Structure formats: C-alpha cells, structure tokens
C-alpha cells in the first residue's frame, strides 16, 4: 500500500483556487487550513474574509465564514467573537484592506486586545483591482497608480504594520513571516500556529503578517517574484516575532 504524502486538508474545500499562477494566497490558505486541522478546531472556527484578492476565501475554507466590507473585517470579527467567545475567530486580510481603508479597525481591535487572529497578507500592492499602489508599496516601486515609482515626497512612506501594532499593549502575538522559499514557509506555518494557539489561550490579539508575492501585477514570473520579494521587501519589512509571550525575536 502506498503511503499518503500529500492530501488536501479537511479544512479546505475541493473548490479550485481562482488565484493567479504563482500567487501566494494559495500557500497561505493551505497553511491556515493545516493549522486549523492540526488544532482540531475546524468545527468551532469562524473566518472573516475581506475585500481584495482573497474576497472569495469563504469558498475555499471549509468552515463557517462571513464576508466583510472593505477594511472592516476586524470589526466584524469583534462582533462574532463577543457573541461566541469560545469559538476561534480569524480574519484574512490584504494590505489595502488592512493597512489603508481598514487601519482604524485593525489598530483598535489590536488595542482592545480582541481575542482574534489576523492573517495579514502583504504583497505590496492592490492585487484585485489590478496592481495599484498600496500603503505597503515600497519607495520607488512601480504600480499602476505610481507609474514612475512610489515617490515618498508625494505619496509618503510604506507602513510597517507589525512594528506599529507591537507598540500597543493589546496584542499577545505579532509576527512577520514570508513564503518566498520552503524554509520560510515552514516558519510561517509555525507563526500561524502560534497565533491560533495564543487565541485559544485567550491572552489577547494575534496577528501574523505574511509577505507574499503578486507575480501578475508585479509583471514577473513566480520565481522572479519571490526573488524580488526577498531582495526588496525583506529589508523594509524585517521578519521576526514582534510580540510574543516569550519576548520578541527578529530573524537574522
């Protein structure tokens, strides 16, 4: 009998992802699904999908989900968690959703120490609408709304969400991870697991920022995109744990 090496987690539906080839969402969805499977909480989890490329996440995750208005996922998750404090509640948000239109909601959910988990996918642009400048777009990075490259004079600087939220007292766990190669994917999963475990302990707000790629809008092949991420995003968005029960640690 052959050994099973790779199966679809129970937490993912058989629906094929609509994501572009090489997009990081598929990997990140799978990581979340594996963690939920491993923790055995699929039937007590409620996810909140946001607006952006991952708007259809409710199709792919095999548990109860709500789809929220743009940027409002942390508020929606707050409503759910306050009604059902013993359930696992998480949001899955992109950088436009979380760091631009939804900045107030994320900051205050974090400040309140809302006992939810936020999976924050940072791919440095608005993917769904076709690659516009995001609050996380790097200085000089070309997008469809910064065709000459992001000018910091005109458009200001990217927001480092993990660092910013880590200044608050409400969060119990905040980490930035990346998925640009298999060892990093492994680390990303560990952080996601830690975040959900922290939620289960009920000690506070948890967020994992996942650096991801957007080959279609960046105009690159998938492998090139990961290289670009490593070379350009990591210096601006250093990986590591910014808040954890055992203190903080930054990767070298």
């Amino acid at each position: 009998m052959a050994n099973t090496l790779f199966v679809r987690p129970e937490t993912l539906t058989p629906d094929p992802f609509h994501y572009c080839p090489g997009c990081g969402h598929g990997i990140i969805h799978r990581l979340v699904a594996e963690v939920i499977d491993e923790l055995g909480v699929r039937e007590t989890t409620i996810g909140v999908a946001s607006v952006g490329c991952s708007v259809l996440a409710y199709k792919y995750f095999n548990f109860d989900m709500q789809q929220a208005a743009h940027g409002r996922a942390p508020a929606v998750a707050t409503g759910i968690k306050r009604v059902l404090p013993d359930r696992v509640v998480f949001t899955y948000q992109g950088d436009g959703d979380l760091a631009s239109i939804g900045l107030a909601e994320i900051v205050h959910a974090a400040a309140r120490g809302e006992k939810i988990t936020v999976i924050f996918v940072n791919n440095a642009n608005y993917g769904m609408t076709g690659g516009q400048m995001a609050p996380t777009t790097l200085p000089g990075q070309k997008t469809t709304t910064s065709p000459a490259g992001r000018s910091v004079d005109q458009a200001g600087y990217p927001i480092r969400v993990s660092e910013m939220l880590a200044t608050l007292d409400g969060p119990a766990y905040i980490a930035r991870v990346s998925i640009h190669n298999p060892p990093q994917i492994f680390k990303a999963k560990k952080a996601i697991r830690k975040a959900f475990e922290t939620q289960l302990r009920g000690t506070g707000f948890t967020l994992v920022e996942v650096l991801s790629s957007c080959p279609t809008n960046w105009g690159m092949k998938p492998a090139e995109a990961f290289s670009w991420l490593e070379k350009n995003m990591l210096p601006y968005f250093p990986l590591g744990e910014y808040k954890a029960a055992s203190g903080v640690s930054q990767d070298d």
Partner: protein
Amino acid sequence: MKILMKGNEAIGEAAVLAGCRYFFGYPITPQTELLEYLSRRLPEAGGVFLQAESEIAAINMVYGAAGAGARVMTSSSGPGLSLKQEGISFLAAAELPCVIVNVMRGGPGLGGIQPSQADYFQATRGGGHGDYRLPVLAPACVQEMVDLTVRAFTLADQYRTPVMILADGLLGQMMEPVELPAAPVNELPAKPWATTGCKGRQKNIINTLYLNPEELEAVNQRLQEKFAAITKKEARAEEYLVENADIIVVAFGIVARIAKEAVKVAHAQGIRAGLVRPVTLWPFPEKILAAAAARAKAVLTVEMNAGQMIEDVRLAVGNERVHFYGRMGGMVPTSKAILEQIRKIGGIVRGKYAVRPA
C-alpha cells in the same frame, strides 16, 4: 407599573427586554444616553456593551454579531448614520437581522443637535448603495420608543432584515411614563443560517458578493419579493378624527403629536381636520392614508425638514391637494403654527369654514 423614563433610555431598556444582549455604538448627541444606559445595563444582563472606535466599526461589529445569531443593536444620529450606511447596505444584502436607532438632529453636515426629521429620505430609501429598503419605525412618544423597539427586533428576525427606529432629539431627551413589557424575551428564534461553527452541519456563509450578474439579479429578486411582502403586511398608521375630515394632516414622530394638538383645537373651532400619523415610514402606509384622505379636500404634510415625506404622501393621494409646512435646522413647529396652516388652507365661507383645493 409605570416608570418615568427618558426616550433614549427607554429604547435601551426595551432592547434588553426584547432579548438584545449586544450593543456596539459611538457617542453622538442627542442619542448618547442610550449608550450610557446600555453600558450599565447590558453587563448586568450578561450581555456586551462595546464603545466602538467609529460608527463604521460599530455597524460592522453589528454585522458580525448578527451573523453569529445574536440580537444586536446600534444607535446614532445623522452624521453617524451617514457613516454607517455602507454597513447597513451590507446588512440588508446579507439579510442580517439587527436594530439601528437614529435619534435625528438637524443637518446637513455637522448641522446641529436639536431635533429634526431631515433623515427621512436616508432612512426610507435604503440609505446606502444598491437596491434595498429596511423597515423604518417612527415612535411618537416614550411608550412607543419601548413598544416599537420590541417590535423592531421581532420584525428583524421575522424578515431577516435590519430595522430602523427613526426618532429625534426631542423624543430621545424627553421623559414620559412608560409601561415596560411584563415578560422579557428569553427564547430567541432559531437561526440555522448563523455562523456559529459548523459542528454537525454544512458550513454557513454570510456573504454579499455575487460576481455573476445572473446570480446577483436572482438575489435582488429575492430581496425585492421580501420587500414586497413587508410592504403588503407591515404598514401601520394611527388615525385621528379622519372620518368626514376636510383636511387631513399627515405627520410622523413628535411632530404628529404637535399636529394632533392643532387638529384638536381646529375641531373645537368647527374645522373638520383629521390626522394620519405613519408609524411605519417604510413601508409607508399609503393605503391607510389614501382611504383616510379619499373625501378630504386638502392634505397638509408637516415635517421637521424641507419636505421629504411629502413625496410619499403625494404618491399616496396625488399631487393636487397636498400642502406642506415644515421647520428646519432643529426648529420645532408649534401647534399654533400648524393650526394657522390648517386655517390658511381653508377660509370662512358663508359663516362656515371651508377648504379650497390646493
């Protein structure tokens, strides 16, 4: 036993008695007492009061909580309601039951804090983007703040829809004796669609996105059918002295009570005036009004705005006979001024008061 309560607080207590255990809101005059009241009362009742960072967050917390199956409420006033409109559109689209209170103040813009009815259009036309309506209940006294709040929660669950209580600063601030419901609601209707964790069933999804236009049209069709059913069954109005009335005064909320005083005095002076007070603003009680006004020579609409409900009045009774009197910006019409309008519409003909058509 009657107790003396402020309108805003009466809504809060009624909500608790109606089984509401979750409130998400933001301070704004003239509704803040409702927040303050529930910040004390809900924890006592084992519920959650949360002061949100914004009106936008508050309405989205309502979305989450309603989707999780709870009876939930938020409240605000004009500027805050404008911020909530995105969320209300989502609530209507996702068919999530909840109660939204608007204690109206003068607008537009920051406006003022004195009573107004200038949010009639916003409330009765949906308010946010897309094709939707929501039931709008208009209390006229503190007792109705209680009764209609309880009713609002029932309607919300029955039709799976947000329901709005449209009051104003005067009703919110004033005190009157109220009789609270004898038996609080303890058992809520089952909500098999709620996202509570999928143990033992298929997963539930609360969603408002339909990228396929055919699918979205079907969703709209279903919503429209629901709105049609509500329109057919839920229109309510109070009628006063409408039989054989020459002039029908139409007013809602606190203005209707002021108008009632004018109608009373008019009657004493031999003028056959009557009053129709819409209790539901959407659905608008057009049949009740049309029947009451069938033989009337004139209809006088009185509002604390520049004339908004008058459009619904005209749809119900036609354009010809309809007159308007309104005050704006937080000014409250007096019964004397309304009486003067009633008298102006008619005149004394051969020793008798008679009404000319408009």
